[in-house]
């Protein structure tokens, strides 16, 4: 009896710990700075984020993001400031709701078109029913079979 109670309490404690760990929490300022600078492209690098780049430009961009976060600006506002200056190019992942979003949509559309094509091919048009042999054909076949059987003895 006691053992069951202990197990139940342990399970409850485990569930409570999981719920506590998975609870949505407000990102700290440092987490927000990391998140924003990870999504921004370093303008003087080859495919590097502002967070990962050691260039002077990236350092200045990180400083600006840090200042804006401290001023209480939202992530979207900070991103918008960089997009106003550099366009959507400054985002490492282009937003879906823009021309550059075609980068995401075209492959999905291509895969969809491919699936439709393959499905269409696999089903294929309904095959026409096999033609019934005519009486002449049946007679010829029977004649041939009879000849072959006779030949075999």
């Amino acid at each position, binding site marked *: 009896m006691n053992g069951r109670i202990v197990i139940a309490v342990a399970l409850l404690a485990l569930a409570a710990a999981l719920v506590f760990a998975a609870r949505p929490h407000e990102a700290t300022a440092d987490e927000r700075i990391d998140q924003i600078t990870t999504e921004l492209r370093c303008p003087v690098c080859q495919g590097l984020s502002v967070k990962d780049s050691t260039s002077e430009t990236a350092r200045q961009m990180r400083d600006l993001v840090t200042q804006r976060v401290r001023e209480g600006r939202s992530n979207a506002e900070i991103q918008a400031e960089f997009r106003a200056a550099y366009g959507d190019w400054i985002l490492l992942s282009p937003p879906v709701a823009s021309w550059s979003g075609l980068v995401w949509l075209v492959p999905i559309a*291509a895969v969809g078109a491919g699936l*439709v094509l393959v499905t269409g091919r696999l089903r294929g048009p309904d095959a026409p029913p096999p033609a019934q042999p005519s009486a002449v054909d049946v007679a010829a076949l029977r004649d041939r079979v009879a000849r072959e059987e006779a030949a075999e003895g």
Partner: protein
Amino acid sequence: MLARIVRIAVVVALLGLTVTLALAFRRDPHDIKTGTILKPAPTFTLQRLDGSGEVSLADLSGKVVVVNFFASWCLPCTQENPALVRVYERYRGSDVVLLGVNLQESRENGLAYVKRMGMGWATLADDDGRVALSYGVFGPPETFFIGPDGVIAGRHIGPIDEDTLVNAIETLRARAVR
């Protein structure tokens, strides 16, 4: 029927890709129309490199302003400098203002370069790079043309020559007269 539609869609997609690539390769890489082009120029007030006061873009309203971002460590900046000097002399005292914005180096280095290269126009210190970032600068040299209405009319990435400078300036002056 379905396969036919898909085939047509594939052809249309390939045509679209071809047209897009053809247009992309026709573009002048120095003429990037993203971000700030055709929008009001971000305002700024910067200290002069020699410490003799500040310059505010707002005070230059109604004039054609050429903003050139430069640095002493930038070789293309050295290459384009003679063209800037000639254009500065040509428009000196007119309704055209040339501003140099020095970035990503110490004021001492910037000022030494300005003196060595004979840059007589106002040269300003963008110590924290905020002005360059607000203009969407990729790296020096970059030149922006601001019309008398305060709107950025054009941008040139990389070393600029005298003809490009004069053409852009005269286009803006002619537009202002009309």
